[in-house]
């Protein structure tokens, strides 16, 4: 590591963070962390959830002001003492958070200049603003009219608006916190290309990501954090850095197999969906799910691949008690017998469960503790008639805490304070306690680190070993290939291919999507 840093001294570092130590009551979040970013490079920052990436970026952007941490920050050689975000932004250090800070019901232009209005003496010059907005949007390759409302464009485009906003502030160092976590493949690619363009124009970026293939694609150097310390900085331009090499750095051990082996052999057909259709809730007549057929065997993991907006979540939610869409038609069978899934409670009573992709908004009651979230879908399981048995409830929560290895102080901890991976485990616990026959998992590993992913795959294996069926919706193709027994490919609301995982490959899946007509459905976001 030392040698790499020394040799690189020809390229001046734009940013140097030295010996950063930040403690919270009882926890040392960062311990003597060093980070050095050169002029015009793309620097990836990776580490497991809770490794300290976000804390480090909060120190850098001034969210934690000078004095609340130890260590030194130098920007373009000058020592800095940020008192707040305004100080770091003035120097051109702009951070784009994972949860976008846009106002949905304002237009792109209004959002671009929010807090930085194109105004003279408090009166906004809308013509100037629109012209400037067009210019900025062109730079990021967004062709929607600047007066479009944020709520009317997809997450991918919203991300671009955030970047355009950063450009309007004369960005020198752009920090992106998992920018592609909620983007589909083509949007992700576009975003990464944009970073490369910026690099050509001398803008340095720090990219926080869990997706190793992206890092391999764009990063010049990689700094790995683990448990609040810098493990190492690798130079990707000098020698090819393998994904295994990065994973070893992140978890401190070689993760020989990213997908746990499964021995369960699928049995008879357990669950079947025939001719499933659903319309968009706001636009009746616009079909989002079209004639979908699906079978799941006992002990089988069925994957559903597809791009963002392919209708996978819409299909799953419309199936689960009509919680999405209208004009829903189709039949569902369990063990060959038709079942009623017309309301959520009936679907649950008939053995179905759906663990949402949006754990914060649809999965958890964040203000409630782990215990209450775990039992929410099956309160009867801890109650006699109407009365909750509190002791039993704690025992149940405690059991899931052990079984799924939820890392927390105790089960009385509020879920809002848990890391993404642990929140996901609480959502899974909730549905495991409801004891379903068929569990639909929608992006169960989104935004969580490699170690937690492995644990979630292990849980999936346990579920199928118990003779249940699992439907796995995922945008990460390696995950589908590694975990599923059979893969369905969905595009534009239709199932366009079905293949055994053993015969599938990323290319085959992509080809199936492309062949089915390259039309992507717009309006990918759920209400």
């Amino acid at each position: 590591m030392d040698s790499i840093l020394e040799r690189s001294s020809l390229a001046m570092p734009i940013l140097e963070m030295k010996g950063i130590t930040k403690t919270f009551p009882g926890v040392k979040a960062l311990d003597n962390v060093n980070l050095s970013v050169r002029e015009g490079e793309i620097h990836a920052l990776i580490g497991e959830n809770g490794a300290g990436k976000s804390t480090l970026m909060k120190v850098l952007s001034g969210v934690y002001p000078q004095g609340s941490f130890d260590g030194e920050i130098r920007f373009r050689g000058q020592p800095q003492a940020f008192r707040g975000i305004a100080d770091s932004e003035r120097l051109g250090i702009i951070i784009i958070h994972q949860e976008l800070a846009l106002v949905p019901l304002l237009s792109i232009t209004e959002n671009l200049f929010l807090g930085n209005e194109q105004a003279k003496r408090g009166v906004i010059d809308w013509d100037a603003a629109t012209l400037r907005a067009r210019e900025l949007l062109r730079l990021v390759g967004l062709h929607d009219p600047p007066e479009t409302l944020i709520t009317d464009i997809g997450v991918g485009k919203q991300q671009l608006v955030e970047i355009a906003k950063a450009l309007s502030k004369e960005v020198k160092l752009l920090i992106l916190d998992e920018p592609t976590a909620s983007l589909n493949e083509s949007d992700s690619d576009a975003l990464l290309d944009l970073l490369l363009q910026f690099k050509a124009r001398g803008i340095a970026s720090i990219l926080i990501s869990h997706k190793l293939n992206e890092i391999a694609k764009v990063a010049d150097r990689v700094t790995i954090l683990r448990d609040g310390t810098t493990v190492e900085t690798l130079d990707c331009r000098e020698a090819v850095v393998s994904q295994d090499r990065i994973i070893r750095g992140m978890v401190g051990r070689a993760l020989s197999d990213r997908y746990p082996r499964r021995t369960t052999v699928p049995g008879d057909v357990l669950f079947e969906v025939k001719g499933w259709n659903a319309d968009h809730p706001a636009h009746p007549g616009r079909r989002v799910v079209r004639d979908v057929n699906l079978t799941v065997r006992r002990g089988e993991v069925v994957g559903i691949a597809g791009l963002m907006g392919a209708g996978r979540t819409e299909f799953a939610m419309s199936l689960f008690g009509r919680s999405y869409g209208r004009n829903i038609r189709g039949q569902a069978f369990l063990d060959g017998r038709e079942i009623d899934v017309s309301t959520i409670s009936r679907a649950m009573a008939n053995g179905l469960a759906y663990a949402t992709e949006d754990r914060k908004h649809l999965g958890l009651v964040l203000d409630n503790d782990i215990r209450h979230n775990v039992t929410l879908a099956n309160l009867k399981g801890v109650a006699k008639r109407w009365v909750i048995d509190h002791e039993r409830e704690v025992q149940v929560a405690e059991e899931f805490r052990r079984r799924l290895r939820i890392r927390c102080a105790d089960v009385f901890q509020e879920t809002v304070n848990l890391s993404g991976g642990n929140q996901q485990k609480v959502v899974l616990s909730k549905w495991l306690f409801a004891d379903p026959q068929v569990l639909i998992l929608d992006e169960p590993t989104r935004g969580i680190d490699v170690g937690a992913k492995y644990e979630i795959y292990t849980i999936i294996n346990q579920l199928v070993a118990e003779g249940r069926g699992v439907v796995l919706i995922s945008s990460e193709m390696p995950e589908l290939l590694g975990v599923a027994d059979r893969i369905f490919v969905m595009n534009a609301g239709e199932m366009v291919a079905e293949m055994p995982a053993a015969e599938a490959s990323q290319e085959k899946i992509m080809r199936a999507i492309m062949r089915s007509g390259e039309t992507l459905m717009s309006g990918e976001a759920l209400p």
Partner: protein
Amino acid sequence: MSAELNLPARGPRVSMGRFVKAHMREYGMLLSLVAIVLFFQYMTDGTLLQPLNLTNLVLQNSYIVIMALGMLLVIVAGHIDLSVGSVVALIGALAATLMVRLHLDFVTTTLLCLLAGAAIGAVQGFWVAYLRIPSFIVTLAGMLVFRGLCLILLAGQSVGPFPVEFQRLSSGFIPDFLALDAFNMGKFHLTSLLLCGAVATALVVMNTMARLRRQSVAIEQEPLPLFVAKNVALAAVLLYVGQLMASYRGLPNVLIIMSVLIALYSFVTRNTTVGRRVYALGGNEKAAKLSGIDTRRLSFYTFVNMGVLAALAGLIFAARLNTATPKAGVSFELDVIAACFIGGASASGGVGRVTGAVIGAFIMGVMNNGMSILGIGIDWQQVIKGMVLLAAVTIDVYNKNKA
């Protein structure tokens, strides 16, 4: 799922300091009430806790407390009900019409009035839960509509007086079965004191049993000295209040109704599946819905419940005034909502306790009463009450953010 559980032999050890800090919000409110009581007790030279005044205090606040129970559920579910003051007036008017004008007996009247309250709640609940109109707007409309209906029903006049049986609802006291003068204590109401003693004993026994049960599965966190202190204080306060009231005319009927309701709602919110679901609904409606909870029906019933309790409060209030007036219940909704918020309920839903709302109601009640005794004008009373509300919520939010 295997039922085998190997839990640690003893619960997590929590130091006294940490435990108190973690539960500061609960104790803070109770301590504020105690402080306010002591302050006015001192300022009024002991008038506040004189048996007569204490009894009045209970009578004056009973309807606010009763409505606060329903309002707490409404607020926890993520809604608000601005119409309760008007409902109080309308139900009073209805009761007067039925009993005074139509000479119906008081049992039938009471039942019909409670039913009317349920119907009012059902209408508003339907609009909120099924038509998805924000509760603020629905109940603001209700506030106007029900006040207007009250004026129509009473033709703008006061109607009374009520039959004596009905008046007892508010101004009656429990009978003394043990009216012996054996201890030569004048007209001491022994039944009341014994009842308070029995309730105190029952509560302490129940608390102890619950503690043992929690200990058996190692989830008790409250340090023993604190537990003992709390129970001793609880028993002492109950016996003291009982003794004070017994030396006047005994326990008012309303106090019994109120206590039973507090116990019931406390149990429902903490220990039943319905209660838990209301909290989940307010905490995250979408997640609750996707967990199989019929959130619309639940919202609907919180309003039905509120309507019934507002109707009961209306009856008690009318019985207390012994007349139904068009002005009854004006701005009650504000006192009730303030009680819930002072008691720690969150305006965004999902958070709040029945005990908190009751304490909040009594904080407001004691301040009203104390300031009136001190001869502070209604003008300054409002200013002070408003500032107390703001201060209480500010401290609460500040503490929550700090935690």
